[in-house]
């Protein structure tokens, strides 16, 4: 991450690369506006819940106890039970793992592949590869992400892996276009010309010289899209195309609870709140990050 203006001066003798990187991250977060800090805290909690969910659950999230169905909040079942008598708290926590784990992984893959393709197109501006990429991106961009996701799941079938694939493919053209645009700004820089002059290969120029210079912007953009990716995953699961029952995901939990919304709203309402809070947190973090990284807004 390159954010030279917000990193404190560190004497050359006492810095090493790892420490400097850590300090850059710390400095970055310290420079964030308060709202973005709150957003970062929300995202951190969501990710922590997702990572440590097996240790956090109090019951098996798929275990039914029909004698205990639709119970309210209690010491035994913190968020009550659903219509099958399953523990809602445990399903919510495990749902975070499925929803966040799936979307983060899928988006990370889309971002990795998409950034490289976009940079390749930017470096080849006006060439055959660039034209081909732009052509494909234009076609895929005509589909809204959810529709594209539904089409992909319809082709490959339902299930965890295919929903991940759907999210990756749905976001790939958007990331390619963004990486191409951002890459255009750096591709004409002198250090790129210099690298070319000394005979560096195209892959080397892209990976060593271009990639590090757009990484921070791409990271922020990807974070912003994570909220949309969560919505796509929850929508697909809500439509019955994503995570398959009885395993929990937030979208599936909303769908399953709808039938008894008037009897026991919590199994639907709690995942709605979880999605709402997480997406708001992500948007707050992304907004703040943009403010810090964008030279025009940083000075305000």
């Amino acid at each position: 991450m390159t954010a030279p203006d917000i990193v404190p001066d560190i004497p050359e003798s006492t810095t090493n690369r790892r420490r400097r990187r850590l300090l850059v991250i710390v400095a970055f977060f310290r420079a964030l506006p308060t709202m973005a800090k709150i957003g970062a805290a929300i995202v951190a909690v969501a990710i922590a819940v997702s990572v440590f969910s097996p240790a956090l659950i109090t019951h098996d999230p798929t275990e039914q106890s029909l004698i205990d169905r639709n119970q309210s909040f209690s010491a035994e079942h913190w968020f009550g039970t659903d219509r099958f008598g399953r523990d809602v708290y445990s399903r919510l926590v495990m749902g975070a793992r499925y929803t966040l784990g799936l979307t983060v992984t899928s988006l990370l893959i889309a971002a990795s592949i998409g950034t490289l393709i976009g940079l390749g197109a930017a470096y080849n501006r006006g060439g055959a590869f660039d034209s081909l990429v732009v052509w494909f991106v234009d076609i895929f961009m005509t589909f809204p992400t959810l529709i594209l996701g539904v089409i992909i799941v319809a082709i490959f079938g339902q299930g965890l892996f295919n929903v991940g694939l759907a999210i990756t493919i749905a976001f790939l053209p958007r990331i390619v276009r963004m990486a191409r645009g951002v890459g255009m700004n750096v591709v004409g820089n002198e250090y790129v010309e210099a690298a070319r002059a000394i005979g560096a290969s195209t892959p080397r120029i892209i990976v060593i010289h271009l990639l590090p210079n757009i990484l921070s912007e791409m990271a922020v953009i990807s974070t912003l899209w994570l909220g949309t990716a969560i919505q796509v995953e929850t929508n697909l699961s809500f439509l019955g195309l994503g995570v398959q029952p009885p395993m929990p995901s937030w979208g599936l939990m909303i769908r399953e609870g709808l039938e008894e919304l008037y009897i026991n709203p919590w199994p639907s309402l709690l995942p709605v709140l979880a999605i709402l809070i997480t997406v708001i947190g992500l948007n707050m973090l992304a907004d703040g990050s943009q403010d810090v990284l964008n030279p025009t807004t940083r000075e305000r």
Partner: protein
Amino acid sequence: MNRSWNFNRRSVLKGLGTSGALVAFANVMNPTLAFARQSGVLHVGLDGRDMGTLHPHVATAAQDTAVISSIFNGLVRYVPGKVSVEAIEPDLAESWTVSDDFKQYSFKLRHGVKWHKGYGEFTSEDVKFSLLNVRDSVQSTFRPIFSNIERIDTPDKYEVVIALKTPDPVFIAVVSGWQGGYVICKKAVEVLGDTYKNQPVGTGPFQFEEFRPKERVSLVANPDYYGGTPKLKRIIYSYIPDQTARRYAFVQQEIDIMKGAANEDWLSEVVNASKDKPLVDLLGPGRNVVIHLKRSVPPLDNLKIRLAIAHAINREDYQRFFGRVFEPNFGPIPLEYFGAIEPNEIPQNLLYKHDPDRARQLLAEAGFKDGLKLETVVSERGDYLGLAQIGKQQLSKVGIDLKLNVLDNASWVAAIIKEKKGSLVWSTAARYPSAETLIREFWICAADVTKPTGVQGFAEYCNAKLDTAYQTAIAAADPKERAKYFKQVQTILLEDMPSVTLGSLATPVLRQSYVDLGYQVKEGTTVLSLPYMYYFTEKTNV
């Protein structure tokens, strides 16, 4: 004036939030008046998305048959609330006689019955046209039921004589007002052609008025109805597939009658949330809830595995899940059906009660001491998915790991019928309440889905002994003899266990307290009503 507008995400979100709150507030303060309660107009909320067809010889969907039952008549009909041969009473036929060999039925028709919309008088020609239309129609799935008709004679305008190929002591039920038994208008079919299915012409108390796609069908009173002018001016059937939306409309008294969810908690909540205490009726015949075990999927071809699955099932869990709507049953046929085997008639060794230890023992004897894995397809429809998820949990407790691949309902139907997919197939079928309907459709050799004649024999089961007992039963004139052989069929099914029956599900229907059906229905009891909706007669009123 040069004024600049700056929008950012936060301001747009604030604006949207405020607008949403205002819209929600406006809705709360000014509920829709479009459905306001009207005197003489009955509003019915159906659970379907849209009309399929209103041709009675083709329609099978519940949202269509509910409407059809108010438009058409049969030669005979059931007393409202009952469905059995004993409950049959005259309708378009005033009287009938049966030959001693049960091969000829003669009907004297009612005089002066008028077809809707000026299509003239109802005569014996219409009866002949109608019955032959069902028997010979490739579109009608009811044609096998009418295939026994050999010849129809019409000696005069008001007499019909039906000759059968083989004796049928209960043929009178075939010409009752239901499905292929509804009489259609010959002249109207000739004039309207294919559009008859969307503009039906019948003889019933209400005539078709208007259809708005995905919204509603309306019927108006038939002033020439032979039973007298109906008290209701109009019936409006609205398509409200979402049960939460339907519940809201009912609680607001925007609809007077609605199909409910098969869930006692849900029904209680609606009753408690409503202003006037509405009434809940459980309409039958019950939907027989069965898990078919596909023989072509090893190790389901092993009887011990099938018996292990039967012992793994705990019917109490289903009772807890559905409440009073679900009635557990150990025999293959719902208890209110004619010829059903009662629990006390089932031999002890064939009464497969919940016994996980016995299930595990049977699995071990079959060579699956460490359990086994199965995979199947299931519909995403709430009742099927609920049944499958409970079943999965119960099987997991005895060591059977069942993977569920959830499909939308239409894809699931295609998967199990056309593509013969799945290992465990859930079915919830309701038919005319006599044992032969379910046996014919699910368990005789011709029903096997792998055969060209098969439609719903998902277990791919065939036992010649069962077929013989079934044929003997349906040929028997004496009801006791019929019942005896039907019970023999069910004993064979329990021995072979091609399918595990869990019980039956009633169809709950709710009515506002101010609705007068025109006949007495004892609240809370199972009312037999083939269209899964109340019969609306000339005496019905709001």
